[in-house]
Every structure is written in C-alpha cells, then in structure tokens.
C-alpha cells in the first residue's frame, strides 16, 4: 500500500486530519469490562497519539462499530467480559466489519492465545500492556489495507479464492500463528490470513480507496441463503454472488466473507460442546432460539458426546413443543435456522457432523434440505425433501425415498435428530418394520420404512457417528424409526424411553402423522415398551407431536437415540425420530442428537454463545434467551 493509499484511507475514514501522520490519529476502539484496565489502556493509547474510544461493554462496542463502521481503524478487546465473550465479539467484528482486532488478556496460556488466533485476532496482547506494544499496533491496520490493495490488484476469481482459502487454512492451522505468541508486532503469519480476507473484502476495483463492504445482517442473510442453496460444498463466491443478486459487492467481497464464514462455522462447531444453551435455543420460542437451537445442535453434534435426555413423561409437553415447533414462528425460525445453522455450521465440519452423519450426506444437501423443510413445517414431510434429510440417514436413503418422511421439513434440523435415531439400533427398526401398522399416519413411513429400516440404512444411520451427527440423518426416516422404535424397544433402550416419545413428538410436529407416539414415547421409559409406545404415539394425534416435540422431547428421545447410536448394535436408531423433525424437532433433535447430553446444555450454552453470535448477526428478537427449550430432563451421560 502506498503512502497515498494510506492517506486516502485515513481521509476516507473520517480523517484525523493528519493524513500524513498515520499512525498518529489512528482510531482505536477499546473494549474492556475492567475500568482500571480500560483507563490505563486508554491513556496508553492516547500517549501513542491514537484517537481512542472506550467502552466497557461488548454490546456497546458492537453498536458503535455498526453505527459508525468507517470511523474506526482498529479494535482492542479484552477476552473475558461479562456480557459477551471476547472471542465472539472478535468474530462478529471480523465478519461484519472486517476490522483488525487485537485481543487483550491477563491469560496468556497457549490455548487461549491460539483461540484468539483462530477466531481471527490479528494480535494477542497480555496484560499488563506496555506502551511499547501499543506503539506498533498500527501495523495491523496498514497490513490489512495493503493486502487488500495487493489482493485486489492480483485478483482473479480462482487465485483470489485460493489465497483466501490458503489463508484460512493457515489461520486454522495456527502454525503460523503460534509465532504470534510473542505478540510483538509479529503478525506476519496472522496477517497473511487477514490480508487475503481483507483484500477481498474491499473489492472495489474502480478506486484505490476501497470502501469497506459492511456485511449487514440483511446482506449476510442473503449470503447464507445463497450458500445454503448452493450447498456448502459447492458454494463458490461467483455463484453466491449471483444468487445474492446484490449490487455493490464483488466476488472478492463474497469470497473473503465466505472464508470468514467457514472459519466461523468451524469454530462454532468446535465450540458446540461449550454451548450448553442449546436447550434454550431449542425451545423455539422465538426464532432466536430456534436458530440457536439449531446451532447449538450443530455444535452439539459435533462436540457433545453424551447428552442423554431423561425421558419426560409428559406428553403434553411434547405436544406443546411440537405445536410450538410447528408454529409459524418455529418454522420461521426454522427457516432462519437452517440458514443460520447452516451458517454456523457452515463449515464443512459442522454440516457434516450434524448432517453428515447420516449417511454421509453432504452438507450441501442438508443445507438445502434445511431450507426446504422449513417451508413445510406443517407437513409431515409428505413431500419429503428427500434428498437431503433422508440422505443423511444412511446413505441410504432407502429410508428416505420410501418414506417420504416428513422429515423433509425436518431436514435441516432433522438431520441431526434423525441421525440420532438411526444410530441407536438397526434392529429395532427392523423389528419395527414388521409393525408398520403402528403409525397410521406414518403409513407412508411405515410401509416404506420397514423396508427401509430393514435395510442397513437404518443401521447406518445409527452408526453414523455416534449420534452426535445423527441429527441430520434422521430427517427422513423419522417416521419409520418410530415404529421401529416401538419394536425395538428392548433393543433400543434409549429409544424406548424418551426417544420414542420424542421421536414421535418430533415427527408429529413435522408430520401430521399421528405420532401419537409422542405422547407415548415419553412414557416409554422402558425399552421394552418401545413398541407400545410407538404405537401409542402413533395413536396420538400428530398435534401432540407437534407440541411435544419440544426440544426436550427430543432430548428424551435423544437419549434413546444416543443409546441407539452407541448402544444399539444394529438397531439403528429408528429414523422415526428424524421424521419428526419438525423445526422444533429438528432443533430439539439437534439438541439431543448425538450428544443428547449436550443438547440441553447446548441449548443453554448455545443460547449463550451462539445466541449471541446468531443474534448479533441476525438480530432476531429474542424473547427469552435463557429459556430452556428442552423441557425434559436431560442428564448427562
């Protein structure tokens, strides 16, 4: 970047009036909840002749940044803050505003520093901060700008993209970043990643002055929708750009944003385990939750190992949940969720984990599926998205096609749930297969299912990665599993218990089908009665399921699922669970999918973590952040 460019940048940024004096007058936003530290930091920065704005709250910082995006050059943020995790803020700033962010903490452990790096920090300073360290932070700003300029110049789709990817890899690898620990202006490694990101971000070829493209919530939403539509695997900037159909952004902008998004998703999936608020999100009480739930799920899937929902005896609950799930809001959210979740789980990892388990379906499908189901929310999945959700289930798809499982709608979330289902036991399924009559409504499912179930698919589903992933899979076959569940009861200890009910409930929501089961399932408790329960569930009106789908339900069922996953030898968790994946179900499933345990925790956590992110990103209205979605009792296995 030439001096002129710097100057232009400075000017463009609202100028400090000291065009030639950069870094003097560089505009820094400092965020730290500790007033003592903040005050000291402020003065240190002033001593370096920067222009300083301080705030003790991350939320305020975000607000400031959003309102005055062009008025800051650099953000310095503490890691430990009460209202929002510093890393989250870091991600959001990186995604939305693409400003260099420096993390600050008294904690200098390698993992924490690494985390900062992987979240995109361009530097990590240890408290107490010395003024010498602050004197050189301006280099991050310059570096970012110059990489923008450089990338912009060299850009062509492929190379630019590759560069980004490479950077992303580098970032993720953290190898380079390790050197950062010294923190003293050694941002070469870190900046490489940043550079490519930045360069794409401001792809305004017409002028040297690159106006920052701010990824507003709307824009990001479109982006996510486009990515979902294309499939995370196939999402390339050019196509995304075309789909988005927005003016004033270039392929480079999209590419860079995509890179960040992938990182973000990856991180989310990695953080899933920490998000115990999934349950909260699960409730689907408000879109935020749902979204969160999904996300949480995703995360859960990935991260949770064992979350075992305790069977919740009340159907009503499930009914309610299901109902809720079916509710427009739920769906709406769902719709949002998928994208969101997709977004979050955008990273390949996420998708694959949650969805992928199923059968290796690719995330792309899931995502797509996810969208679809939402629309259907109310239908059991007659149309069944078919491909996506079911696919998850086990490669197989045998389940899927046969069933038409409503899972369709569930897909996105279902997959997760579903996944769980099958995992538990293929056998149950098989047994179930015979039953068929169980689910009148399922009918479709039943018939098809049994066949499907009997197939190894179910098995596969179950197998899919230890439950955690199942969510995705289950979608389609959900219906079936239910029946199988009942059969399997003995086989599927888990299923019998909660899962059945849950599945049913889930399914119900998704499917009008008479998943009365749901009512029953909850009662199940004992595996032996799974069949009965299933039957019962089926008997229950679908409505029940809808309501019952409550996140918790799924949780319960989740448990079974889990066991299915793990324990069932072959039972293969009945995909039924998945079938139900109603939005709520899905989310709930997500919750309990695989990790069952994690789910509720996830939800909780999610609401905390993802919630923040999601909410921040999309700013959905959050009725209750803390509302636990899962009503059931979850016990951590």
């Amino acid at each position, binding site marked *: 970047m030439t001096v002129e460019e710097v100057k232009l940048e400075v000017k463009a940024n609202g100028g400090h009036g000291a065009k030639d004096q950069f870094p003097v007058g560089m505009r820094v936003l400092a965020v730290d*909840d*500790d*007033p*003592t*530290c903040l*005050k*000291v*930091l402020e*003065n*240190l920065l*002033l*001593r370096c002749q920067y222009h300083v704005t301080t705030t003790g709250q991350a939320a305020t910082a975000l607000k400031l940044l959003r309102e005055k995006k062009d008025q800051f050059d650099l953000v310095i943020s*503490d890691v*430990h803050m009460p209202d929002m995790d510093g890393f989250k803020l870091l991600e959001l700033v990186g995604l939305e505003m693409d400003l260099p962010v420096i993390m600050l*903490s*008294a*904690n200098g452990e390698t993992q924490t520093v690494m985390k900062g790096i992987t979240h995109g920090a361009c530097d990590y300073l240890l*408290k*107490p901060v*010395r*003024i010498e360290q602050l004197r050189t932070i301006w280099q991050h700003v310059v570096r970012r700008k110059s990489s923008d300029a450089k990338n912009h110049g060299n850009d062509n789709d492929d190379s630019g993209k590759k560069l980004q990817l490479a950077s992303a890899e580098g970032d993720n690898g953290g190898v380079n970043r390790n050197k950062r620990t010294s923190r003293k202006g050694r941002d070469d490694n870190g900046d490489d990643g940043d550079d490519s990101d930045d360069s794409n971000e401001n792809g305004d070829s017409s002028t040297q002055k690159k106006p920052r493209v701010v990824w507003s919530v709307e824009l990001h939403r479109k982006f996510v929708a486009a990515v979902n539509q294309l499939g995370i695997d196939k999402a390339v900037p050019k196509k995304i750009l075309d789909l988005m159909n927005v003016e004033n952004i270039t392929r480079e902008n999209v590419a860079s944003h995509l890179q960040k998004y992938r990182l973000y998703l990856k991180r989310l999936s990695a953080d899933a385990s920490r998000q115990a608020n999934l349950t909260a999100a699960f409730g689907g009480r408000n879109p935020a939750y749902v979204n969160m739930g999904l996300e949480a799920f995703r995360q859960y899937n990935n991260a949770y190992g064992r979350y075992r929902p305790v069977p919740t005896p009340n159907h009503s609950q499930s009914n309610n949940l299901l109902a809720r799930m079916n509710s427009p809001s739920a769906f709406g959210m769902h719709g949002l969720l998928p994208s969101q979740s997709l977004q979050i789980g955008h990273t390949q990892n996420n998708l694959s984990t949650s969805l992928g388990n199923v059968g290796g379906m690719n995330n792309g499908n899931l995502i797509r599926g996810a969208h679809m189901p939402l629309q259907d929310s109310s239908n059991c999945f007659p149309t069944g998205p078919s491909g996506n959700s079911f696919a998850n289930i086990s490669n197989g798809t045998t389940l899927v096609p046969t069933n038409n499982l409503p899972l369709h709608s569930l897909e996105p979330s279902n997959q997760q749930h579903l996944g769980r289902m099958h995992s538990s036991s293929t056998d149950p399924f098989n047994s179930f297969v015979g039953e068929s009559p169980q689910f009148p409504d399922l009918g479709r499912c039943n018939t098809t299912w049994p066949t499907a179930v009997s197939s190894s698919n179910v098995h596969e589903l179950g197998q899919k990665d230890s439950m955690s992933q199942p969510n995705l899979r289950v979608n389609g076959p959900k219906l079936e599993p239910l029946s199988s569940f009942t059969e399997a009861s003995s086989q599927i200890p888990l299923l019998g218990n909660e899962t059945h009910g849950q599945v049913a409930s889930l399914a119900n929501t998704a499917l009008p089908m008479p998943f009365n089961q749901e009512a029953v399932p909850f009662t199940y408790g004992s595996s032996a009665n799974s069949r009965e329960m299933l039957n019962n569930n089926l008997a229950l009106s679908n409505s029940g399921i809808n309501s019952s789908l409550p996140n918790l339900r799924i949780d319960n069922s989740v448990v079974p699922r889990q066991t299915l996953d793990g324990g069932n030898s072959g039972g293969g968790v009945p995909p039924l669970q998945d079938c139900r994946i109603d939005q709520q179900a899905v989310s709930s499933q997500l919750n309990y999918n695989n990790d069952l345990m994690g789910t509720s925790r996830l939800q909780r956590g999610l609401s905390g973590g993802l919630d923040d992110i999601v909410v921040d990103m999309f700013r959905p209205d959050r009725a209750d952040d803390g509302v636990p979605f899962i009503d059931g009792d979850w016990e951590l296995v």
Partner: protein
Amino acid sequence: MECYNLQRQAACLKRSLFDQGYLDEQFCQIEDLQDEASPNFTEEVVSLFFKDSARLMTNIEQAMEKNPRDFNRWDAHMQQLKGSCYSIGASRMKNECTSFRNNCGDENAEGCMRSFQKVKREHGVLRQKLESYIQLLRQAGPAETATRPGCA
C-alpha cells in the same frame, strides 16, 4: 528511611512498596502516563482500582457464600480481579489471586477460602499504603510527579 520532605517521603514510600513487592513496574508505567494532560492520572487510576476491586471482591465473597463449590464461577470472578491487579501493578495481591485460582483449579474449597483471605489482606494493606502515597504526592505538589526513585 530518612525522608525529609514530602517528596522524599513519597519517594521513599514508593520505593519501599516496590522493595517489598507490593508494586511492580506496571505501576511505573502508570505514573509515566501522568502528564500535563492528565495531571492526576495516578491518583485516578489508583482510586478506580480500589473501587472496582472492592466490588469484585464482594462479588467473589458472595459467590463463595451462595454458590458453594462453584469453582468456575469463583475463578471467573477472580480472573477479573487479577486482571485489574495486573493493570495497576499490584504484585502481591496478584500473586494471592493466582493462588486462589490454583485452588479453584484443584477444587480445594478450603484452600480457596484461605487464599481469598490473603487476597483481602493484601488488598487492605495495599490500599492503605497507596493512599498514604497518594496523600504524600498531593501534599508534595505537582513537582513530585517528576521524581520516581522507586521505580524498578
């Protein structure tokens, strides 16, 4: 110590604080930041620190009462307090904070109690001494800011 005038007294006090490990060089940096633009910076930071740290310590105390054995919570609070200590250079207090956090890590409630008492004690002592110091500085007048013999 033979400190004749206020300035000397202030300087002596500061030096002793450093020698005894109550303060570390971060405090020097704080004093460094005091200039014409912020003539009372040191005093402001010190009072801010004590106000905030008192609050944090109350939080910790409450957490220890209401959330027994919730080590994560305790640790989180203490992390904040420790960060503050870092910023001002409160060395001994910071060490006690560290040992508290170690006890949290070991899930040693007894140890935490003890450490916390030590933190409180250090906090009290430091507060006293720094208040005296600030007093002396104030009395000594602005010229005092120029001399910092105690800085390590």
